């Protein structure tokens, strides 16, 4: 009994003042993921990495927009999105008080404009993503001409690229030359 009373006096006050005072937290705590749309290029890396499918994307071709969204009600705060983001657009904060009155309030959205294809003028990819890719591929080009060529290629939709890939060899006349060789 004496040991017990001694222990109680030794331990003092064990409780904290929270919620009337902020709760001290470790600096590496994985809290609410914060998205910065200005940084985001909507590349969809996070939507693929997200284990519980909390992050998703939908495309509206009519309006030429793509909507990125996160549902904090599904989020498991694992931080995979932060790891895979190429532009540092999503980061885990220390915020953990996420209660809201309505479930819809847990969903955050960001709408991105789509770029139109250089060749056929249909919307095909987020404009910021195209611009980002253009910068990356042009930076490694050996000549300014080549850089321009690569920029235009990056701004072409996959369907046009495929069509182009078929047309170009046709223009070289490979088939005709093969015919001739065979004769």
């Amino acid at each position: 009994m004496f040991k017990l009373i001694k222990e109680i006096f030794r331990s003092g006050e064990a409780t904290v003042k929270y919620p009337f005072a902020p709760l001290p937290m470790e600096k590496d705590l994985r809290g609410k993921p914060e998205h910065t749309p200005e940084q985001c290029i909507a590349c969809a890396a996070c939507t693929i990495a997200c284990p519980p499918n909390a992050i998703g994307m939908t495309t509206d071709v009519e309006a030429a927009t793509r909507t990125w969204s996160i549902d904090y009600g599904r989020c498991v705060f694992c931080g995979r999105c932060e790891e895979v983001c190429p532009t540092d657009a999503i980061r885990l904060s220390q915020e953990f008080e996420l209660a809201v009155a309505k479930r819809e309030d847990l969903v955050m959205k960001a709408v991105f404009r789509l770029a139109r294809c250089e060749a056929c003028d249909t919307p095909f990819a987020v404009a910021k993503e195209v611009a980002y890719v253009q910068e990356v591929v042009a930076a490694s080009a050996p000549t300014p001409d080549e850089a321009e060529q690569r920029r235009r290629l990056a701004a072409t939709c996959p369907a046009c690229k495929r069509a182009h890939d078929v047309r170009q060899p046709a223009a070289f006349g490979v088939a005709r030359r093969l015919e001739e060789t065979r004769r």
Partner: protein
Amino acid sequence: MNVMTQLPVGATHVAALRAEMPHAVLEERRQTADQITVTVKLESLPEAVAYLYYRRGGWLSVVVGNDERSIDGTFGVYYVLSMEEEDRCYLVVHAKVPEGKEEFPSVTPKVPACVWGEREIRDMYGLVPVGLPDARRLVLPDDWPEGLHPLRKDAMDHRFRPAPTADDETYSFVNDSDRETTVVPLGPLHITSDEPGHFRLFVDGEDIVDADYRMFYVHRGMEKVAETRMGYDEVTFLADRVCGICGYAHSVAYATSVENALGIDVPIRGQAIRAILLEVERLHSHLLNLGLACHFVGFDTGFMQFFRIREKSMMLAEMLTGNRKTYAINLIGGVRRDILGEQSSRTLATVRELRDDVTRLVDMLVSTANVEGRVKGVGILDPQIARDYSPVGPLVRGSGHRRDTRVLHAFQGYRLTGLDINTGDGCDVLSRTLVRVNEVFDSISLIEALLADTPAGPILTEDFTYVPYKFALGFTEAPRGEDIHWSMTGDNQKLHRWRCRASTYANWPVLRYMLRGNTVSDAPLIVASIDPCYSCTDRVTVVDVKKATQKTVPYKEMERYCRDRTASPLK
């Protein structure tokens, strides 16, 4: 030089099985250096399992069913045996059940430990264990449609899924009141209890004659979710959520199973970090259970004190992983966060503090009057019953059996350390509690040793290729005992099968033997001593065998009676 040491691990068991049953073994496959799967003829299955279990020192870890019709037109049943005497390894006995004749000879009459596994296979795959005495369902609810077996690959397609349950409660509850009453449903889903179960105690006066219980009220279908919706590399985060207390042990067991199947070598530092975090988890879990042990004997001050120091282990987890409970730190191939210099020194300081705190509190606990009287000789688990049912963790160690996966099948960072097995021979609640106390000190020493000795280096490897239809076991020693996972990779980067066996699953079947012969007021204490994630007795039905009456006692009332031992709810 000893000739035996030149043989690969486990080869002696396979040779002995071939000698004992010359024509039974069809095929032998090796998954890792210490995991072998032998395929036997279906009719030889019970004899093969029983021979390895009782005559070669095997303990049953898990029974796995698998729908392999897309691979070879059969269902697979796998009996995983942990060989723990000489030549230690995991030996899996596999038999093929042909499609169209969906039955197999039950092993339970020879090895009682198989009972839950076989009942689950019957529910989940519709394979009938011929000769299994217990014909009741285990996992599926009473009103689940006949003939719908959820884990078959062609079942549960969302387009053809029938309404799974009826809206009406089919269970009848007894109400002896002669006046009009208001019905307040309490349980089986109790709001404070994460793992509900319904208990029936058959009593004579105050003495428990027998006990029965029902679990799986909140079966979450995790295995099916993992197989249908998630990529194999995302399941580590789901496995973290199998248990609210020892989730990291599941995450490591799952990651290890896939790493074993694909032959991935996790870097040494990654392995050591996993072991450190497993021990951090054990610290908080054992301190929680020691606190609860105080609570159930009516010593609530001790409960508060244990929970106060437990908070230090929770902060430790938050610092090292970024979360107090779901660590989410495993990937296939290693871990995501290193332990840096500052974190290492703060961890060392915290565990040193914890060692002093626990020493003082345990001293206080054993010197408190009446504590020993309440826990000594209560809830006896007979060592032979334990041998027959293969329970795990402090429960089986408290009955004198040397079973600890960390030592017998050293995995991950435990290969780097020396560790001994704590056992007790009292077979009672006290013995289990003392095993846990000793393990707390072991965990602290392990954390110190691993932090001091681990070489710097990479923590994650991505140097592997995903191959479908490979399978292997993964295992950890969770605070409650061995967690074992059996994973088979599938096409489309998804698992073909994930069998996750939590430690408490292996411990439930022996509980009825521990309850027999004790008084009703000790029941919550005995249940808590197997350390189910929370004492799941949220509702207890008491049947008086002499008077043939039945009475349902709310869990709170049972718990109060256990603490105060006055005003019996049965009178």
